Structures are given as C-alpha cells and as structure tokens.
C-alpha cells in the first residue's frame, strides 16, 4: 500500500515537472512572439502597421463646410459616388435636412469626420481601421473582418457596409485595389469617406468639393491643410482660424471629444 502511494506521489511529481516545463516553454515562446510580432509578420510578407500610416506628405487635411451656403442639392453626394464607384445604397457624404429650434431649415452635409480621437479606430479588433499621419482615417478592406463594431461606435453614422456583393461596373473592376482607392469594392467589409486623399496627392480637391463648386459657382465645402491654416473650395481660399473665429465655426458633436477634422460655419438665420 505504502509502495503504491509512493509511486503515485512520484508520478504526480513527474507530471507536475513536465507540466511546468511545457508551460514555461509555451509562455516564453508566446512572449517572444508578442515582442517580435512585427518582425514575424514581415517574414510572412504582411505589411507592418507603420508603413500603412505613412502618407508621404506633411499635410494635415481638414475640411470646412459653410452651412449658410449649402442649398441641399446633393451634388457632393453624386460627385463622390461617381469618383469612387460608391456602391448602391451607400453615401459617403450625406446631406441631412435639419429643422432648427426656431423652425428654420438648413442642410448639413456629413462626410467622415476623420476624428483625431476616432471611436471607430479604438474598437477595431484587427487594426483594419487606422489613422494615417496626414490625419485621414482609412480602412484596409483586405483586413476588415466585417464585425461592424466600428459602425456601432461611430457617433456620426458615417460608415456603410457591403451587406452583399456590391453591384460592380466594368470601370470599377478594371481598377487595382489600394487602401486609398479601395475599389473594386469588397463584400462583407465596411466603407466610408477618406477625404479623397488620393486626389489630394495629385493636388486636386476632393470630389465632393469639386462637385459643389461646379454646381454653385462658389462652393460650400472647403478643403485644405491645417498647417497652412488655409482651406479652399477651388474659387476662394479662406484663412481657417480667422474664419472660424469670426463666423462662429464649430465641430459636430464636439462635446464627445472625438476632435473631428471637419469644421462647420453656422447656417443663415
């Protein structure tokens, strides 16, 4: 009896030692994996996080929307759709009709706010949403798993989802996907406005700005570089800080602390 109990004890001891060895080795391997995850990903050909965030410019893109000028024509939405082959049912810039507390009506175009403190970016489980060093929030449609947590988190409802296979056009299909120009659009992934960063690189204003100016002669949407403190609608250029101060500029839901890169000038009363 004593013998068998002795054996049992030895067995348990050996088992424990084996367990501790395997567990320690496993933990060590795991820790090394976490520490050198970037290097390991590189070996397997994955893009390290940092290179995606490099824009190649020093600019900090911002937008200014003059609500006193917006007449709700929707040309910005159409121009954006044509420029990006925006899938049916989606609007990357939406024009809302708003009734203010005194009964006056005005229009509020809403692109993605490119928040400095972006709620969508925080919640993404796989880093598919990221912020580039020029302030633009992008989506990597090859990484997005379609959990839609970002849509639940966005206080501006600025994100859309490809619920099914989007209806494609030949011109869209002929294009090669890139994060800046994400078409052909991909089923099961989230989409949104990206400030037309690909056009900014070529020195062109965003599609919505161009469409608005073309329609109105002197457009309601301005785009520019925060460092230069200047925004332009293609016809006139405004000093940003001064205009905001003089005309009561504001940011949409600024109380949330999201720090949008889109400013508004109040509507006419």
């Amino acid at each position, binding site marked *: 009896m004593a013998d068998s109990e002795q054996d049992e004890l030895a067995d*348990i001891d050996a088992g424990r030692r084996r367990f501790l060895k395997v567990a320690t080795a496993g933990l060590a391997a795991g820790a090394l994996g976490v520490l050198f995850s970037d290097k390991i990903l590189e070996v397997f050909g994955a893009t390290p996080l940092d290179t995606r965030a490099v824009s190649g410019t020093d600019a900090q893109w911002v937008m200014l929307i003059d609500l006193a000028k917006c007449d709700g024509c929707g040309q910005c939405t159409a121009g954006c759709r044509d420029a990006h082959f925006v899938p049916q049912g989606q609007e990357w810039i939406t024009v809302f009709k708003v009734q203010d507390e005194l009964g006056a009506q005005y229009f509020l175009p809403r692109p993605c706010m490119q928040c400095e403190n972006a709620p969508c970016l925080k*919640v993404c*489980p796989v880093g598919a949403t990221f912020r580039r060093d020029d302030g633009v929030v992008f989506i990597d449609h090859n990484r997005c798993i379609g959990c839609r*947590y970002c849509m639940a988190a966005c206080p501006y*409802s600025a994100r859309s989802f490809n*619920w099914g296979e989007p209806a494609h056009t030949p011109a869209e299909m002929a294009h090669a996907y890139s994060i800046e120009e994400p078409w052909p659009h991909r089923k099961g992934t989230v989409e949104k406005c990206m400030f037309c960063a690909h056009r900014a690189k070529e020195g062109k204003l965003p599609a919505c700005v161009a469409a608005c100016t073309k329609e109105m002669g002197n457009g309601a949407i301005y785009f520019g570089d925060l460092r230069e403190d200047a925004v332009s609608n293609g016809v006139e250029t405004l000093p940003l800080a001064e205009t905001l101060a003089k005309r009561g500029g504001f940011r949409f839901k600024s109380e949330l602390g*999201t720090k949008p890169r889109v400013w508004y000038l109040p509507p006419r009363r």
Partner: protein
Amino acid sequence: MDEMEADPVLVAPLRRTTWRFYVMCAGLLAVVALGVYAYVTQLSGGLAVTGLNDTISWGIYISNFVFFIGISHAGTLISAILRVTNADWRRPITRMAESITVIAIAIAAVFPLIDLGRPDRLLNVFAYGRLQSAILWDFLSIATYLTGSILYLSLPMIPDAAILRAKHSLGRFRNFLYNLLAKRWTGSRRQKMGLEKAIGIMAIVIIPVAVSVHTVVSWIFGMTLRVGWHTAIYGPYFVVGAIFSGIATLLIAMAVFRRVYHLEKYITVKHFRNLGLLLLALDIVIIYFTLSEYLTAAYGAEEQDVAWLNALWTGPFSLLFWSMVVGGFVVPAFLLSWRRTRTIGGIVAAAILIDVAMWVERFLIVVPSMATPQVPFDWGVYQPTWVEWSITAASFAAFALLYAVFSKVFPIVSMWEVREESQAPAPAPSVEGEVPA
C-alpha cells in the same frame, strides 16, 4: 456502502434510451439542419439576406450571443457559489448547472462568427488582434471561461467515470471518455483529497472569470458613445441578468430531467424552492437596475435619451418593453413570493417567463440603441428575416440536443457527490425548512 455502487436510477438513463428520445433528437437535428441551410444561404448571399442595415447593423445574432453567454452563468457561477458557501443541497443539481455552462458558452461563441461579414478572415484576429478593442477582451475572457468551465465540469466527473467504467459496459465511445477521465483513478484517500482541492480551487477561480466574461460582453456596448449603451451600470446589470437567466434555465432543466429521468428522489421541492428564492432575489435586483437605468436617463432628459426612451416606452418597442417588465419581471416576482404559487409548477412557470423576458431584454439592449438616430436622420427599421430566425431556432435546438446527449453520456446527477451528502453526519442546511412535497 460500497464505494463503487451506483444508484440504478441515476445509471438508468445511460443504459436505456426510449424511442421518444430518438424522435426528439431527430426533431432537434432537423431544426439544426435548417439553421445550417440558412447559414449556407448567408455565406453565399452575404449578410444582405438578413434584415440588418447600415443603421441597425447588429440584430438578433448579437442578442443571441448575449443571451447564451447569460445562460452560461447558470452553471458555473451558481454551482461555484453554492459550493464555496457550503450549501449541501446543491449536490444533485451542480452537474446540471455546470453542463449548461459549457454548452451555452460553446453556442454563444459561435454567434459573433455567424455575424461576421468576412468569416473567412477570422484568423486576422490572431494575426492582427488589437488589445485595445473590447472584442479582443471578449475573445480572451470567453476562451478562458470555456476552458475553465470544461475543467470545472470534468473534475467532479472523474469518480463517476471510474464507477461507470468499472461496473457498467456502456459501449466503446463512452468507455473511451470514461477512460480518458478516470484511467488512473484508484479512489485512494490521497487522490480524493487532491480532487476535492482541485474542485475547490476551480470553484473559486471560476467566479471572477464568469463575472469578467459578462462584464466584458457589456463593455462591448458600454465602451461606445451610443445612447442607452454608454453607461456604467451595464457591467453589473449584465452580470446580474446573466445569473438571473441562468438560474431560470437551470430550473427548467431540473423540471425536465426530474420528470423524464424519474429523479424525484434527488431533485425535490426543496431544490426548486431554494433556487426559486435565489431567483426572486435576483428578480428584485433586476427590477432595481432597470429602474435605475431608465430613471437616470429620463430625469436628465438629454435629447437622445428622450428619443430612445420614447421608442421603448411608447414607440415601436413598447409592446416588447412592457411585456418584458410586467410579464417577465413583475409577474414572476409574485409567482415566486406567494406561498400558493411557490410550487414546482409555479416556479417553473416563472422561470420560463423570465427566460423569455431575458431574451427580449437582450434584443432591447441591442436594437433600440442602434435605431435611435445619431444624426438628423430617419429612425432605423429592422425586421429579422427567416435566415436569422432559422439560425436562432437552430441555436436553441442545438442547446437542447447537446444537453440531451450529454445526459446520455454522463449521469446528469453527480453520483459520488450525492452519496457523500447522504453519508454526511450533519444535516444539510437549507434556506428554509423541509417542506412536504
């Protein structure tokens, strides 16, 4: 009494299976098959086959996820708390509770995957996982909980497996499982002490893990800036709601197994009454939390809060909301507190009402918050499609099926634990005096 002797009543379900059981399994399998078909439809058509849209982008898949995670607290938390507090009457129901836990987590964990737009990219969570995202917190805590619960379920099965392996020949598959668990179990004093110690440690470890799981599930919502979600009450609210629906589910399971497997000797009126009182206590806490949540929002009366509350109280969700509050919280409170309705029938009726109400509660957590406009915009409309309902039905069928099959593989009442209770010198303490059945 012989250590290796088992009560024939407890082994009977393992030895004999009636045709009714097979018919039931076939029925449940058919529902599961319908769900699989629905999912295949969704895989080819994308989530477009659901009623979800850009405004209400989470629906009943996420409700089911929260519901099943809630159910899972039946088990481990109840049986662990009762074990830690030395409530001896727990013995016949611990395994029933613990197996609910394991099965419910396994089913809950599937729902976020069903809800994914790109399930083919699931592995990105490993390749690119960001600890800043509450989804990763969920991933980790649910994996920990599942592992811990399987351990906590299996440990007390070891002595039973030894008995079954030695005394009964129940076929190759089951013997393989019994061997896996109890091959080296001799029943020596040393082994028994080790086992008791291990179970004791697991009972304590599993409590914070279970609390963390439902807290983290609530944080998925709580960490956003949405109306109705962005509140500190969500963590405790979810945890209490989980235990609440967990006990209700356990009570229903007890009634079914008692009837079908003739366990009247083991599962007595006392068990129903004790758990019924625990359920009543949690019901009152839920009513209190519900009041706190809505009154806080209503009194401050921020614009968005008012819109959201109106939708719940008088708008499109009002029928569901008031049915939940009255039918699922208030009526059960009366059923559970009146002596005349505190019978097995009354308690089980309350449990069924509560489980239905808790599913509705999960739905009312997810959908109205998403429907409330965040921008000057129309209200979102969401009507789940047959695909979503089929997958939901399949999940409930799969739960029942796995539970039924489990009861055919292992005795649903822990044989060695109830024997130890009957041998215990001191009388088992109970919440209230022994009541004649």
